[in-house]
């Protein structure tokens, strides 16, 4: 089956700005699973074909590729409205946030990109706390890693940053407001135009 895999966050935003078609070219994969031996996969990715033997092993996945063994921790972070799934994947100290999309979702995202609205990144509170300061006004352009607001939780002030570059489309909270874990804080729309 046809799938797309792309990186989320700062690195992805930087790559997209540079090439303008990070979504279009790389990341396309043709995934085939052996019906009789379901741990065997053949995956075409970026012009290379990989034969992979993958099994769940305790907390992680073991991938065997051409005799080389890789233990990969793969945590699903959530499912997007358009059907993609988000993962935090790590192996040997390298960690990336990856999103896997089916062709329909991928096409929808491409269309969004073409329309200039891009993907949006909604940042939520990771724990209950209080918003002590909002650093950026809605409508302004933010860069990946830029602090948007300060959340006080467990008596510590933590700067909450934009995970990707774009336009701060909306701030859902105001200074002094108490929030619960999971509450949306703000949304950044990639590739948008500042108001």
């Amino acid at each position, binding site marked *: *089956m046809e*799938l797309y*895999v792309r990186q989320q966050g700062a*690195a992805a935003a930087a790559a997209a700005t540079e090439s303008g078609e990070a979504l279009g070219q790389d*990341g396309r*994969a043709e*995934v*085939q*699973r*052996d*019906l009789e031996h379901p741990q065997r*996969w053949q*995956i075409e*990715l*970026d012009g*290379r074909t*990989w034969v*992979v033997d*993958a099994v*769940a*092993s*305790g*907390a*992680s*996945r073991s*991938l065997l*590729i*051409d005799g*080389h063994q*890789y233990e*990969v*921790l*793969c*945590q*699903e972070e959530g499912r997007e409205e358009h059907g993609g*799934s988000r*993962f935090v*994947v*790590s*192996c*040997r*100290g*390298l*960690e*990336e946030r*990856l999103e*896997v999309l089916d062709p329909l979702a991928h096409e929808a995202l491409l269309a969004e990109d073409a329309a200039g609205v891009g993907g949006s990144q909604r940042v939520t509170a*990771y*724990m*209950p706390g209080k918003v002590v300061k909002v650093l950026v006004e809605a409508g302004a352009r933010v860069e990946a890693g830029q602090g948007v607001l300060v959340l006080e*939780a*467990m008596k*510590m002030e*933590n*700067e909450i*940053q934009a995970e990707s570059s774009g336009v701060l489309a909306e701030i859902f909270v105001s200074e002094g407001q108490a929030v619960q*874990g999971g509450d949306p804080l703000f949304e950044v729309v990639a590739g948008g135009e500042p108001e």
Partner: protein
Amino acid sequence: MTDSAAAGDRGRQGAAEGGGATRQIRKVLIANRGEIAVRVLRTLREMEIRSAVVFSQPDRATPAVTFADEAYEIGPAPSSKSYLRGEAILDLAERIGADAIHPGYGFLSENAAFAAACEERGVRLIGPSSSSMAAMGSKIESRRLMMAAGVPVVPGGTDPLPDLDAARAAADEVGYPIMLKASAGGGGKGMRLVRAADQLESAFRAATSEAGSSFGDSSVYVERFVENPRHVEIQVLADEHGNAVSLGERECSLQRRHQKVVEEAPSAVVDPDLRRRMGEAAVQAALAVGYSNAGTVEFLLAPDGAFYFLEMNTRLQVEHPVTELVTGLDLVAWQIRVARGERLDPSLARIEPNGHAIEVRVYAEDPFKGFAPSPGVIQALRLPEGPGVRNDFGIDAGSEVSIHYDPMLGKLIVWGEDRDQAIRRMRRALAEIRIGGIRTTVPLFEQIFRDEDFCAGRLDIGMLDRKLASGEFAAPERPVVEAGEGAAPIEAVLRLAALIAHVESQGQQGSASGGARAAERAPRRWGQLARLDALRGRR
């Protein structure tokens, strides 16, 4: 002593046990949670002493409860309504017939009022007396006591300086660089570093005005500023019969904002002569306050080899396992033996460190996002095993890391024949550990244990903060361990794994023909299986 009287009151003063015990301890109530409760429970079981724990509502399903013989709910999640309820814990100890309370660290462990309440009610607190605790609890009082006992302290005086002239005289006497500190201070407020005499006037004005506005008391005092010191502490053990021994040092210089992150024993820079001198000073410090039980005397060690008393921790330390691994002792067992009135074994004084031990504190924090707390459910857990590895944890797969308590999940400790082997072993153990579902400080350790300065033993208490600030320790853009020759790039492996995980969690077949149908038949089957596997968390 009040202790013998207490045991007598309770009618438990039976025949002395081996080692000269004057009272029996048959049931211990642990007034703590998490990894340290588990740590104490292990020793109690080995000593065949009945164990009881208190727990807050959300801690019901944690190993601290499931390892215990008896467990009693003490209140809701907030510490002030559970683990800090000293009176309720004492009532419970009486009700269930516990002879002693082990406070662990944190919570009530250094609360002299709680220690006094235990003494009044005839329940043994496994720790020093309330008066030793109180004497060491006050910075100014303990400094005065240590000077009187001949223990070196950072040169300076705690007397408030009335004016600039007095400050100038005091600074000249102590010698630059100096630190101006607020008498009522804490938290860095009202503190000024002065490197030379010509900077004193403006620093004095700034420090007094900041002290005044922060504490309502503008007085400041002068202390020598020790540049780039190490934090080296001595483990001591003292009995109720006036015997005290030093069990060697722990190097705890790797700190983030004054919180220890990595600890080791012995220190890379402490030779036998320095170890003996620091040990003697620590024993003097303990004897000066009539100390009994396990305690830790913290020192600043200057680059020139001079050392200065910092404070004494009147309890078991988080990092006690590194001392256990290089001495072969069970410090919790010795705490209990001393609390039973036993005498220290004279052979303890002759113990030399064997090999090298290193501990890392694993926190539920994201080290590359400003150490933001990362509460949540631990989806999967695998702790490293094999030669020379010890895990002190208080979590299971499925445990919830709550925002109500310290975010330390536990400690990973390794032992090696020497420091180099211990470092290699820690790298190996870090490659095995898996804690899924939350962020932890493990990725930071992977960098620390490959850092040139750390591996060479070049440490000081500001090193970690500097390397974090400069970006030297940051989220890796390259794999920490490169793939071997002929292997796939890790970036490609990550993508392949994500694709496979996606397909498996969709419950679809990868073949073009069968995909859609399989998805309709068993939409979430694979996902459920994968999650079940993860929750079982084979270790």
